[in-house]
């Protein structure tokens, strides 16, 4: 029996149950997604885009799913001690794949801004959600997106109306909770109308020591002149699989910053596809991964320069210790006519041990002749001369290595435009390198 078969059977049996506990808009996309999933299956290493991570294998173990939407007995506001305190965010939770509605805090969001359950909002504002849901996340091209669209029942919507600026950062914490091995399929839909501005921090936390598999599909619509920052921070454990696909479309003169930081994980695959669809749009993709033991981090990015006069900047840095495996593939496509494109891509990696492995694959496809495109990729070790210089000043070999590794990833942390988060990350990264961040820090239950 193929890996897919158990999920195909599951869907055939439970379709009604899945639909009952979701909304019409989410349900209307299922049939096609299911057909696509049956055709595509899960990605395997035979596919170029998934060469370094065997997704199919991740789905082999048996996971529980909460299709009946039974309430999970947890009050995140009680058990979750934020890892980024003093940040004064508007804080929300998704427990497994359900938006947590009980005991919602008093909303600090400006009028007209929506942050809430995808299921609920798609029932209350069907005209708004129908216009955007599933428009970017093409189920016919990616097996994980097709799977997610088939099974998803809830998630989160962020909607910022025209010219509204959300000053206070919004924080969303995904809590993975389960007594048995558990799978969750969540969805995030972000809509910024013309001139809107917002900042979102998403943290992934695994609360229990069981195997988790989380799929996530994020769609971001950035209208003209919008400014949107999204920071993702993963602090799960070694038995967690995270498969995240982000699809973003930017209109003219929009500014998008996506920063994905893997501090502690099991197997992680992040795919980010950005389409620069209006002139003057600017995108910044940053990422950092710190991995040891048998951790696996794969970032795959695709930037589509579809129109002239757009800018993209990418910087990804990995520090791999023990037997960790890292992969980075970055495709930049400059379409015919996309003149005056300015695209920069950098991927730098440190392999601290001989057993750590890094695969890096920059890929530029340029079909316009008046453009500025650059890419650089390096894999190296810590600088022996620098290490000795520090030791000669009395700094122990261990501390010297730490300072160098810290300096290495600092470049990515410095791109963060939220000071409280930046300060906190300096601390978390230091703890991580010192081996003090072996498990999720944020949950009272873990302590």
């Amino acid at each position, binding site marked *: 029996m193929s890996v897919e078969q158990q999920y195909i059977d599951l869907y055939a049996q439970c379709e009604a149950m899945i639909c009952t506990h979701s909304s019409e808009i989410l349900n209307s996309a299922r049939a096609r997604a299911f057909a696509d999933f049956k055709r595509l299956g899960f990605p395997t290493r035979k596919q170029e885009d998934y060469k370094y991570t065997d997704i199919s294998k991740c789905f082999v173990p048996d996971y529980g799913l909460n299709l009946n939407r039974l309430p999970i007995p947890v009050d995140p506001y009680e058990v979750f001690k934020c890892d980024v305190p003093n940040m004064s965010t508007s804080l929300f939770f998704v427990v497994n794949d359900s938006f947590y509605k009980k005991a919602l805090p008093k909303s600090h969001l400006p009028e007209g801004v929506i942050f809430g359950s995808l299921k609920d909002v798609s029932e209350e504002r069907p005209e708004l959600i129908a216009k955007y849901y599933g428009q970017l996340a093409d189920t016919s091209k990616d097996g994980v997106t097709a799977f997610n669209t088939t099974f998803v029942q809830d998630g989160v919507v962020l909607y910022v109306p025209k010219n509204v600026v959300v000053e206070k950062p919004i924080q969303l914490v995904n809590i993975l909770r389960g007594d048995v091995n558990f799978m969750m399929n969540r969805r995030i839909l972000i809509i910024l109308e013309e001139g809107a501005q917002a900042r979102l921090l998403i943290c992934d936390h695994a609360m229990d020591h069981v195997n988790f598999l989380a799929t996530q599909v994020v769609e971001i619509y950035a209208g003209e002149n919008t400014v949107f920052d999204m920071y993702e921070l993963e602090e799960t454990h070694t038995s967690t699989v995270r498969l995240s696909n982000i699809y973003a479309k930017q209109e003219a003169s929009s500014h998008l910053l996506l920063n994905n930081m893997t501090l502690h994980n099991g197997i992680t695959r992040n795919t980010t596809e950005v389409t620069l669809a209006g002139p003057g749009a600017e995108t910044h993709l940053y990422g950092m991964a710190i991995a040891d033991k048998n951790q696996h981090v794969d970032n795959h990015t695709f930037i589509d320069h579809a129109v002239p006069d757009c800018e993209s900047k990418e910087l990804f840095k990995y520090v791999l210790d023990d037997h960790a495996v890292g992969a980075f593939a970055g495709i930049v496509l400059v379409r015919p006519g996309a003149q005056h494109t300015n695209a920069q891509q950098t991927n730098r990696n440190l392999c601290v041990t001989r057993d750590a492995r890094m695969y890096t694959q920059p890929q530029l496809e340029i079909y316009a002749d008046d453009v500025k495109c650059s890419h650089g990729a390096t894999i190296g070790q810590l600088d022996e001369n620098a290490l*000795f210089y520090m030791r000669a000043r009395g700094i122990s070999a261990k501390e010297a290595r730490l300072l*160098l590794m810290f300096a290495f990833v600092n470049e990515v942390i410095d791109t963060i435009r939220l000071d409280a988060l930046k300060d906190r990350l300096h601390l978390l990264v230091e703890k991580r390198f010192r081996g003090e961040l072996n498990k999720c820090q944020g949950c009272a239950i873990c302590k």
Partner: protein
Amino acid sequence: MLEIRDLHAAINGKEILRGINLSVKPGEIHAIMGPNGSGKSTLSSVLVGNPVFEVTKGNVTFCGKDLLDLSAEDRSHEGIFLSFQYPVEIPGVSMVNFMRAAINEQRKYRGLSPISASEFLKLMREKRAVVELDNKLANRSVNEGFSGGEKKRNEIFQMAMLEPKLSILDETDSGLDIDALRIVAEGVNKLKSPDNSCIVITHYQRLLDYIKPDVVHVLYDGRIVKTAGPELALELEEKGYDWIKKEIGE
């Protein structure tokens, strides 16, 4: 303070030091001169524990301890300091963090608690003045983008911060203009005390005009072939090394 006995050292199996004997007492300044490739920098590297070199024979005691038994960091903690001929750039590590780590590790070794933030800043300010090091440099990454002269001044600044018993200046004068040379030399002289000693490795008499040595050694082909008073440096400046080679029969 420092006793070197019949020291032999090699790199990649090639013997560079072939039996060094040297004794440095507290308060003394020793100059080591010699032609290129004679082993001067190897000697300084071996003394601070650079793992690239392998000691094949001999022993070194420093203040009664077996120096060769200590790790590079512990040699620093015990009070040995090398002013590098080629200071290393460390992008992303700020001078402040670097110096604080160095000071605190030294304090830890000596059983002291970490230095307070205000004390540390005061110390930095005070020692910066010794070599007229710009505050801007102190806020940058270690040696990154520093000019040759700034790097050497930064070495002496670190020496001032760590207050070593024995300082080894490895061609600290190379690449310095006249003004920088004077500042660096004055810095070294300000740090001088009857208890600490200094080994100055140089090619030129010029530096020794500022830092007056008590003893001058000539290192040639991995051995110290001549030792005399400060007048030897002048003689070498005038006559070169050929007469010494003749004297030892080569």
